[in-house]
């Protein structure tokens, strides 16, 4: 199959739709022979980003669409998340405070910290009235790549 190939899905800004995003990512990853570990990591990163959009992008609420484009390329997989919520560049997410000695860490910011480690690149652009956030995971694709990895 010649690459790049893009799969396009649209969900509502409803937390219940998150599982559909993971499933779509799973289908695409399997179809293009993405190895299990990068696929899992990209799924979690995508989940973190989309759940943040659902929770924070529209302070006034209301029903909105979130568009997700998953593109398989020779050098890996790219996921673009497009929403018409308030402007937010995920690369500007504040760093977590280190917990005080003997204290448990606060939960805020854990998702952003994980996402940075789960993908190779995070890009962002505000185009018109929309946020375009792109996560890139570099990995080899194809049957040889996916079968070479232990589950």
């Amino acid at each position: 199959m010649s690459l790049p190939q893009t799969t396009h899905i649209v969900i509502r800004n409803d937390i219940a739709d998150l599982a559909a995003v993971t499933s779509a990512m799973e289908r695409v990853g399997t179809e293009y022979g993405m190895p299990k570990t990068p696929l899992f990591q990209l799924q979690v990163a995508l989940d973190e980003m989309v759940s943040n959009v659902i929770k924070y992008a529209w302070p006034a609420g209301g029903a909105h669409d979130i568009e997700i484009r998953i593109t398989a390329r020779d050098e890996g997989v790219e996921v673009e998340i497009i929403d018409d919520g308030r402007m937010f560049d995920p690369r500007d997410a504040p760093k977590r405070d280190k917990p005080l000695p003997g204290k448990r860490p606060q939960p805020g910011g854990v998702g952003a910290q994980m996402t940075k480690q789960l993908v190779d690149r995070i890009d962002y652009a505000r185009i018109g009235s929309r946020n375009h956030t792109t996560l890139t995971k570099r990995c080899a694709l194809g049957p040889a790549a996916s079968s070479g990895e232990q589950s």
Partner: protein
Amino acid sequence: MKKTALRMEDSRAGPVCILSIGGRIDSGNAADLLDRLNGLLAAGEKTILLDFKEVLYLTSAAFRVLLVATDEAERNAARVVLCGLAGQVRELFEMGGLLEAFTVHGSREDALAKF
């Protein structure tokens, strides 16, 4: 195994309440896990062992629940202990900088031997 559902089942080993978790924990169902943990604490459980062996997928929503439940346990003079973290799920705990935030044992048997 289905990735999209969260499964929870409790059992008992002496004074320890074991909650086996399986499947997927995300923003959509993390509140169900918190409700279950709060319910066990409210019922007077003092040691809750969370077995993650069957967890296939989780996001930071799970960490939020664990941090909140651990604090709640402390307020009730109880404790929440984790076991069965492996592979990619364990790596997520490491990436979130959370492995040190909880009491974590290897297998369920390892954990029960410590109580």
